[in-house]
């Protein structure tokens, strides 16, 4: 066990799984970088350096730089998964899914059902999401609700380095198509990560704080935010439960209901746009199955129904933050 960054945790998961299973390949734009040029041959290792070092270790046959052709990348990975490989494709920013969504939701996600259970599609698509880097409307979105909506897909959203490695290993080994969401502001976060291979199972949410007054439900980056708020409110004698969903599909309904029933006051913090997002989905679930245990209306902390703005001033207003979460908690407590 040693302290590693989120980035190192992901890199280690890929490296170790590729060593273990020769059917695992990595494919995407600049996953090595430098193909066909005269400079460094592993120049980028992915736009954020997640796949750095894989090409020198495994060669270009297994770490495949592609043209900027998202449909071809994702479709090639889907077809390869259907015929015996275990590809990890990189869709650089989830915002780019608009140019390849057919291959994800009409093809990979549906093979198994359409073909009457005969197909196995062990495809992992890694992608970056989230605001905070002033990357504006086409490089900052969350969009995980759209994938969660699709039967046949699994949606994974780690919040810390330990889960990042364990969930990525599980994603690669999983026999269904998985969309793996990495928050672009978490890559340098440090955490304890075992050196050996391990998995974190899907559909098992993690209680990161245990409290009795309010339940905060979070995913990916908002887990950290909720933990911070919980730690601060402790000084004010308000104790919060924080639930890290870890995977949005499958969804750990039991833990959500348990967490809601324990306190009767629920705040859901979701960085995706407010209509038909994870917060509304979970809110509906709790209302449907644990309504009588609620002591106050469920509050949702989300961005407004706007694209992600560029100006730092505007983006800061757009994103969930401590003040917004605290205000929501206060409203539930006042009820």
């Amino acid at each position: 066990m040693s302290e590693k960054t989120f980035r190192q945790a992901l890199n280690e998961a890929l490296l170790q799984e590729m060593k273990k299973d020769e059917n695992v390949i990595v494919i995407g734009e600049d996953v090595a970088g430098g193909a066909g040029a005269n400079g460094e041959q592993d120049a980028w290792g992915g736009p954020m350096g997640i796949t750095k070092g894989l090409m020198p270790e495994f060669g270009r046959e297994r770490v495949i730089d592609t043209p900027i052709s998202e449909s071809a990348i994702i479709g090639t990975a889907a077809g390869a998964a259907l015929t015996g490989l275990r590809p990890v494709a990189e869709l650089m920013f989830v915002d780019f899914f608009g140019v390849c969504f057919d291959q994800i939701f009409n093809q990979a996600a549906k093979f198994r059902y359409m073909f009457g259970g005969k197909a196995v599609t062990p495809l992992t698509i890694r992608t970056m999401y989230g605001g905070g880097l002033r990357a504006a409307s086409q490089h900052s979105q969350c969009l995980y609700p759209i994938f969660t909506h699709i039967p046949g897909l699994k949606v994974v959203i780690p919040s810390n380095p330990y889960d990042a490695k364990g969930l990525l290993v599980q994603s690669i080994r999983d026999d269904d198509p998985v969309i793996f969401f990495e928050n672009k502001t978490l890559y340098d976060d440090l955490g304890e990560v075992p050196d050996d291979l391990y998995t974190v199972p899907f559909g098992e949410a993690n209680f990161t704080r245990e409290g009795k007054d309010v339940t905060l439900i979070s995913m990916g980056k908002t887990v950290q935010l909720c933990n911070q708020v919980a730690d601060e409110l402790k000084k004010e004698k308000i104790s919060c439960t924080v639930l890290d969903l870890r995977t949005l599909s499958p969804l750990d309904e039991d833990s959500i209901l348990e967490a809601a029933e324990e306190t009767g006051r629920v705040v859901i913090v979701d960085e995706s746009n407010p209509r038909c997002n994870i917060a509304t989905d979970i809110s509906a679930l709790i209302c449907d199955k644990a309504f009588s245990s609620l002591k106050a209306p469920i509050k949702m902390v989300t961005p407004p129904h706007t694209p992600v703005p560029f100006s730092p001033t505007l983006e800061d207003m757009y994103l969930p933050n401590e003040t917004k979460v605290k205000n929501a908690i206060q409203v539930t407590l006042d009820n």
Partner: protein
Amino acid sequence: MQLNREELLKAYTGMCLIRNFEDRVHDEFAAGELPGFVHLYAGEEASAMGICMNLNDQDSIASTHRGHGHCIAKGCDVTAMMKELFGRKEGICGGKGGSMHIADLSKGMLGANGIVGGGPPLVCGAALSAKTKKTGNVSVCFLGDGASNQGTTAESINIASVLKLPAIFVVEDNGFAEATSSSYSVGGDIVKRGEAYGLHAEKVDGTDFFAIYQAAKEAVERARKGKGPTLLHIKINRIYAHYEGDALTYRLPEETEEIKKNRDPIKIFKKRVIESGLLESNQLNAIEEKTRKEVDQAVKDSKEADFPTEKDLLTDVYVKF
């Protein structure tokens, strides 16, 4: 042409089986017996058979919404296919796929596809599997003139060229994308599009089984030897409309009659093998009859087969969830 007698009989049997299957589906649909959307391949049989007779079960194909012919040519079970069209539990996809999603991975049939241009990226993936695992297998994508205009096709042809994939793109240009003529919708030239991306590309007469077989043979050899992808532009004819129920008003009735009379690949094949003394007419007539009976039996079995149950609705979404 080096085809032996047995191979010629196989080609004719396959083409007749496809034709009888499609003719019967046409009738069953008209009689209100079949649910959903069906798109018939009649008139294009030489392409499916000419290509697939060069492939084995380990080679893969991706198909289109007009996929019955490709499925039969690749070896899918005709009765299981027919049961699928009738929505029965014993259908080739358990009644969950229907006409546009027939697949049999054990035969290398990666699926008909309801999305125009859905197949080309997937074929690149199957070809990548073959290349990575060094199996020597090839992967063929059937697509239409409509799909030739999709971005996925352009992306796939480029990535196949860049990665030197053992892939073959077979553009079956039947003259119409739905109701719009390919002479209107295809800018430039399909062969030149392939060449522009560095593929070996050629135009082939879709009524001539032998020409298709030969072009496919060369393309498959090229792919197996690691010499990169090929594009074949097959000029072909659709006897029926885009989908069953389409009144075919965009084509003149005499054009359809002319296709049936002069451009039917099965009639052309039959005439050629008889005239050249390769096969005899009574043999061919017997094949026509035998395949018709096979389809009759498939329809009978399908109508007697059970429908899926409520339990089946929820299975096969995930391997594990």
